[in-house]
């Protein structure tokens, strides 16, 4: 079946293109283990990793707090302008990341400049769509009849939400939260503009690269990638 072989050959270029850099960076770092160990003991790196993990986690939690109710409303209610709301939610995916930073600064200026708030603001803008859409899909998959039956059995609307809808939609919501977390920790462009400080690991990678070159920035990259890939495996 030559056609499929041809296609597979063409297609495997992209597979290799994505897989190769991942393998190469891990392998090269494994050969330069000393540098990795040194990096792990660099207080600047530890501080930056802590900042990244904290802000990404905060972002995921905020996305959940507001995204889950929004997802529920989108799943259960038809209202005028619903498609506009849905469009707005998806907009952050297409806006250039540096522009996101400028937009946020133009709007909130000093309130977010160079602070944890700024990092979270930038992350939230790009992460929220994942949390909202996953919650919506999760609730859409919960049979409305289950809610109806719970109501007739005596549960109020709020009680029904917490004892029926939320637990059943939880897997989808959790995967949305993880995606939001991953999207947050992968963000660089907007954070560079809004909050270069407090320094996050993804910004530190860039700084080390600019100041000390590739060899210095590689170990942090490997650590960050390890975390991201771990999250990714959990997600699957």
């Amino acid at each position: 079946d030559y056609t499929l072989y041809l296609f597979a050959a063409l297609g495997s270029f992209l597979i290799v293109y994505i897989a190769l850099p991942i393998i190469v960076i891990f392998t090269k770092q494994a050969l330069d283990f000393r540098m990795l160990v040194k990096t792990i003991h660099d207080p600047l790196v530890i501080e930056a990793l802590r900042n990244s993990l904290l802000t990404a986690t905060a972002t995921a939690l905020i996305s959940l707090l507001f995204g889950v109710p929004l997802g529920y409303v989108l799943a259960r209610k038809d209202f005028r302008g619903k498609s506009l709301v849905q469009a707005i939610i998806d907009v952050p995916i297409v806006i250039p990341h540096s522009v996101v930073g400028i937009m946020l600064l133009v709007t909130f200026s000093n309130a977010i400049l160079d602070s944890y708030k700024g990092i979270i603001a930038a992350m939230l803008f790009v992460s929220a769509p994942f949390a909202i859409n996953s919650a919506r899909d999760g609730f859409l998959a919960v049979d409305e009849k289950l809610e109806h039956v719970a109501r007739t059995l005596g549960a109020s609307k709020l009680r029904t939400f917490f004892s029926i809808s939320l637990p059943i939609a939880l897997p989808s919501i959790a995967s949305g939260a993880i995606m939001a977390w991953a999207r947050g920790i992968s963000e660089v462009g907007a954070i560079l503009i809004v909050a270069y400080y407090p320094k996050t690991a993804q910004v530190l990678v860039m700084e080390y690269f600019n100041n000390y070159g590739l060899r210095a920035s590689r170990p942090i990259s490997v650590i960050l990638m390890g975390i991201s890939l771990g999250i990714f495996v959990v997600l699957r």
Partner: protein
Amino acid sequence: MLRVESVSKDYKEFKLRDISFDVKKEEHFIILGPSGAGKTVLLEIIAGIIEPDEGRIILNGVDVTSYPPEKRNLAYIPQDYALFPHMTVYDNIAFGLKLRRISRQEIDRKVKEISKVLGIEHLLHRKPRTLSGGEKQRVAIARALVIEPELLLLDEPFANLDVQTKSRFMTEMKVWRKELGFTSLHVTHSFEEAISLGDRVGVMLRGRLVQVGDVKEVFSNPVDEGVARFLGFENIIEGVAKGNILEANGVKITLPISVEGKVRIGVRPEDIILSTEPVKTSARNEFRAEVIGIEELGPLVRVNLKIGGITLKAFITRSSLIELGISEGREVYVSFKTSAIKVF
């Protein structure tokens, strides 16, 4: 107990129109209708899930039209049972009790009690996805009855069960009713359920409740053509009657009674007899007809026939189809007894 007063509602593709009926205490009331008649919408209006555009729902003399579902004290069992998939059977049944702030021991006692009646004690620790259709249905009924509702709303309760389970259920249903004494409103498209369970039946067609009454009475005296068609009088012929002869598009049909003027008659397809040769039987109406269509319905075949200006449908078995060698375009003899004719 329950009174539905001129309820109307436009909901999705369904249009309920001016529906009124009442259900007496401890009665098993059946709403019978084809799918798409709006039966589920009506149940959901009574349950408080959908708000009617017009009309009122009265439960035990109280107008509950504006009450939310949780204030109506009734139980609703949808067609797919809607068991909570993330809870065990025990927790499913206990759900309604927990909301009522009853003590743990009391809840436990009630869950065990109803499980015993319904024969599901051995399932209490299982998750719903591991249950068979019949077991799911029992759990759904237990969950509904344990809160001792005023009224049980059943949506096609036996539609997803196999024949054996279904038969056992219908028998047991009667036992449970005696034992627990609940009132039920049951919607279905099954004549069998209507016949074997219904104290009274309401026939619902295209959003209207067209006839309410005793089962046998409804079946033998359909109020109009629509009900007649639903009950199986697929052949409705319009013509002008003179005495006991009806002339319809040039075809003369002998009637069981004497009437005058424009009338309609109904004949069930299963009452029409086909043969390849003319046979003078006790059937008083016999015609030559052309086969214009054949439609298989499982072991039964519907044959469309053309007699002069009118068309008739007849049911024959698949084996008769083969034995008589009936195929399209063939000429056959058609007969039916005058007693099989229903005049409207």
